């Protein structure tokens, strides 16, 4: 069981900044995110796109913002459970919460802060009959451990970065890699496209375009797929694995069943005070919450996180008073033993 003060669900910009604000109050944080890396939408959807409304940054790339937030919170040693989705929440008799992920990882915390954005990113599944019955029997939508494809025949479908990158990576691992896309053009980083071209010319990747996978077959596990190339008749391809990579779409998911008040796919909170939900001890901050006048902006998430941490402090330290301290005056003491402080003023007389 992982124990922490504040359990943050969602490692996007709001969740990451919460670690910093909580750290100033000597509260420890742990984050859960369904994606394999922190940053939320900023790293998953648009890492290379600029953002213009982060205070003091006239322009910053979404990926760079993630890096800077990680750097800023590093000294407060956040824990991460990545690639797992928060599934259930249980209130304990001592007032704390236990949150369990879809993989069974358990987290115990006094305060839960949901910073889940639009929800957890779930793979978009193509509409192929019987596809779901082969899930984990040859069909996968996310590659967690490439080793399972060693010396296997693999078919990847998709035209974006992940399809290209995995085709390149697996060409070195699998016995055969086939990449299928609806068009001849790919939507990915130029060097990935060039690399796939090179591997195709060497015969290390089989490319079928413009084409679509139309059926899957097998007895107890996936054995073959049917591919239709534009203007040609269907062909069957023997394969051990079929990996459709058609991107991810956010779903509020299991959080919707936690007994929280939901309005327009967002969690209602008390914005007059502390962004607490209808369940005391459970807060919702950033894009996932709603209240009169709500704006889904990163900078609003930062503000909400800061006020939420004050309320969390009072719950975790009942009866204790708090006086606001400025980082410039007090410096920052990291949980890793580091200290940052403003240089002392020089006092020297002038003769």
């Amino acid at each position: 069981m992982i124990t922490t003060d504040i359990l943050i669900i969602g490692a996007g910009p709001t969740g990451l900044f919460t670690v910093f604000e909580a750290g100033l109050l000597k509260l420890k944080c742990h984050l859960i995110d369904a994606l394999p890396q922190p940053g939320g939408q900023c790293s998953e959807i648009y890492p290379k796109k600029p953002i213009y409304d982060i205070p003091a940054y006239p322009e910053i790339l979404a990926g760079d913002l993630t890096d800077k937030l990680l750097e800023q919170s590093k000294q407060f040693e956040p824990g991460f459970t990545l690639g797992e989705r928060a599934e259930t929440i249980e209130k304990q008799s001592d007032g704390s919460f236990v949150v369990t992920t879809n993989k069974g990882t358990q987290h115990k915390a006094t305060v839960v802060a949901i910073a889940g954005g639009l929800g957890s990113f779930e793979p978009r599944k193509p509409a192929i009959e019987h596809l779901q019955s082969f899930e984990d029997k040859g069909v996968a939508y996310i590659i967690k451990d490439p080793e399972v494809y060693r010396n296997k025949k693999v078919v990847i479908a998709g035209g974006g970065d992940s399809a290209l990158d995995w085709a390149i990576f697996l060409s070195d691992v699998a016995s055969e890699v086939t990449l299928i896309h609806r068009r001849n053009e790919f939507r990915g980083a130029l060097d990935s496209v060039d690399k796939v071209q090179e591997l195709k010319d060497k015969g290390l990747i089989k490319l079928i375009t413009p084409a679509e996978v139309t059926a899957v077959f097998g007895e107890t596990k996936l054995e073959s797929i049917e591919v239709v190339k534009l203007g040609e008749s269907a062909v069957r391809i023997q394969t051990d694995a079929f990996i459709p990579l058609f991107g991810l779409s956010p779903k509020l998911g299991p959080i919707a069943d936690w007994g929280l008040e939901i309005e327009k796919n967002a969690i209602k909170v008390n914005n007059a005070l502390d962004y607490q939900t209808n369940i005391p001890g459970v807060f919702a901050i950033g894009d996932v919450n709603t209240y009169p006048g709500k704006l889904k902006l990163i900078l609003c998430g930062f503000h909400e996180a800061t006020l939420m941490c004050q309320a969390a402090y009072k719950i975790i330290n009942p009866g204790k008073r708090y006086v606001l301290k400025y980082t410039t005056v007090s410096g920052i003491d990291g949980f890793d033993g580091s200290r940052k402080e403003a240089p002392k003023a020089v006092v020297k007389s002038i003769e």
Partner: protein
Amino acid sequence: MTLDVHIQITDRDGIRHDVQAPTDMALNLMEVVRLFELAPEGTIGVCGGMAMCASCQCYIHSDHQLTEKLEDEDAMLSEAFNVKPTSRLGCQIQINPELEGLQIELAPED
């Protein structure tokens, strides 16, 4: 004086809505759908309007001359589901007076 254009939007439940979209707010079609709340929050414009998801895919039913698809939109539509020859991404269509009478239908959520 600024002009509103009439747009007919069929939502994902098949219900037709006639809306008047302002032309002076630099809106795109995805934003018009959100303005009139014709699709639940979080199911349209997920990427914010960068042609990086296909949550605002719609079918154009009238024969208006729309701006040509840029590479981004074309590539995104090649990966989307339920794509038809009339498919466009709403976020890539800017509202202007020439769109008077436009008829569109929102593609299903995938």
